[in-house]
């Protein structure tokens, strides 16, 4: 006689591992999504709070699964037991709270169906945690054969069948089930848990790190990044992100050679600002020339300039002026490409400076932006059409 029906430990374990992997994946993907979505948000606390809440929710889920697994294991994976008087079955449900249901044989109906076995009942007695009975109306569960040892399940069904029919006739013959290998399982679990932890740590670190470029610690020369000015390239200072779309050579209606930069800007903190005063041209930038204000020209002098295009003088549109914008005045709704015009020397190359902070041979203060020195090769510039 087979009086109990137990889950196959191996199936439960692999299901547990599968569920945990899914949650690990969701944690990493969710972190990436939150970080990407909140990338443009000014407040750095908001994405952190969102990631925190998200992780808390997934951790609760993990804890619930671990708790169910623990109570299932302490019951030796037992799902159904025939009661001592052999009048019905005790069914244990392992959800967030373990519950026992008693179903008398008279109310029980078993339907076998391919890979599933359905246990349906008209009524049952559900016992809550304080062992108080509640009458449960029509319900049932579905047992998937995958989750059980085939021999044990068959034996159990035969036993139930025999007892349901009033235990008439000879006791049915029980087939002997094979013993599962135990040692491999433990090692496998340990291995999987270790890998999960590693993937979770590395994955989240990458997800968090890759989408959240923290302001670097600025020391000495890092206060001035040195880059080459290129079309369709993004440059980052501590507070701003510059996307240079195009850089042009041109001449004003008064015959001055100028550099025109068409770019858009994205603040990386709410406490930033931008104006034409921040842009200057140097024949050759060095920390000394900047400290001495020995610049060649300033962008502020070229507001409202007309440019020769194919012999016709045309005004420059959307030009940054000396007032520019400050702090949260600037937002996604007004973010559009704009232009900076500044006089250039007629040499083969020169330097275009974004002055993030007022430089006097010292490093920027904590709230100051950092500077970017764009090296410009005149032959690489486009001609306006």
């Amino acid at each position, binding site marked *: 006689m087979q009086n109990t029906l137990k889950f196959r430990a191996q199936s439960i374990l692999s299901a547990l591992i599968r*569920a945990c992997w899914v949650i690990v994946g969701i944690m990493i993907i969710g972190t990436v999504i939150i970080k990407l979505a909140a990338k443009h948000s000014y407040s750095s606390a908001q994405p952190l709070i969102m990631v925190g809440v998200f992780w808390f929710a997934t951790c609760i*889920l993990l804890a619930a699964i671990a708790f169910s697994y623990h109570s299932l294991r302490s019951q030796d994976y037992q799902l159904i037991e025939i009661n001592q008087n052999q009048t019905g079955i005790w069914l244990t449900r392992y959800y967030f709270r373990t519950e026992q249901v008693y179903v008398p044989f008279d109310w029980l109906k078993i339907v076998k169906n391919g890979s599933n076995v359905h246990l349906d009942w008209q009524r049952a007695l559900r016992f809550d945690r304080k062992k108080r009975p509640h009458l449960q109306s029509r319900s049932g569960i579905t047992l998937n054969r995958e989750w059980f040892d085939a021999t044990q399940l068959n034996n159990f069904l035969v036993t139930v069948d025999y007892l349901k029919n009033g235990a008439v006739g000879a006791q049915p013959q029980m087939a002997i089930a094979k013993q599962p290998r135990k040692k491999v399982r433990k090692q496998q679990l340990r291995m999987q848990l270790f890998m999960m932890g590693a993937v979770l740590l590395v994955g989240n670190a990458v997800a968090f790190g890759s989408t959240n470029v923290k302001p670097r610690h600025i020391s000495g020369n890092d206060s001035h990044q040195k880059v080459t000015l290129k079309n369709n390239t993004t440059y980052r200072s501590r507070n701003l992100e510059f996307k240079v779309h195009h850089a042009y050579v041109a001449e004003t209606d008064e015959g001055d050679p100028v550099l025109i930069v068409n770019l858009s*800007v994205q603040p990386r903190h709410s406490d930033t600002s931008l104006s034409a005063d921040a842009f200057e041209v140097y024949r050759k930038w060095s920390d000394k020339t900047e400290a001495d204000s020995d610049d060649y020209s300033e962008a502020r002098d070229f507001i*409202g300039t007309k*440019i020769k295009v194919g012999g016709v003088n045309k005004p420059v549109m*959307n030009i940054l*002026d000396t007032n520019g914008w400050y702090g949260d005045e600037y937002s996604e*709704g007004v973010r*559009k490409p704009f232009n900076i015009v500044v006089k250039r020397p007629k040499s083969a190359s020169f330097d275009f400076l974004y002055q993030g902070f007022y430089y006097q041979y010292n490093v920027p203060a904590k709230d100051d932006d950092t500077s970017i020195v764009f090296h410009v090769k005149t032959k690489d510039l486009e001609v*306006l059409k």
Partner: protein
Amino acid sequence: MKQLVIILSLIVTFMFTSVTAQAQRSYQFTGQPLTLKSSGTHLTITGYELLKSPQPAYDSADTNELEQYLIIHATVSLTSSIDGGHDISTDEYELFSGPNSEDILSKSDHIGKLLKADHHLLTMDSNNVNVKNGHSRKVDLGFTVYPDNVYILDADIGYSGHDKYVQLNQIKSSNGVTAE
């Protein structure tokens, strides 16, 4: 397993709602009256004009003296079920002229006197204009701008925090740098 799916979908829903809550509203003014609604206060933009004269006083940043006055004509009406009125405040409006933010004109710009009588210019440091429930009021919003810029009105009606952006004009350009 069913509970797992439910909880996971709840988490995902939570994530997406908190992410999209930040969305902002953008509009394009086409010459037809455009109404922005915010908690019972309606702002209808009926038109705008770039004044050839009078011109703003010389400003040190504007060496070529190109600046002009931009006047936006609008109507504010209140359809709230709540009693009381709405104070139209200059702080609710800001204009972006290209990449530059412009505050609403102040009393000291003296433009009010120069404009025709049918204008209802709202200026900074003047008393706020009150609209009663069920009524509407014509207002003009004035800014100093450069010509050949894209003008975007940023309206935070009633300080709801949900800014609405109205792009007033479009500029023809073959290269994004020079205006035709």
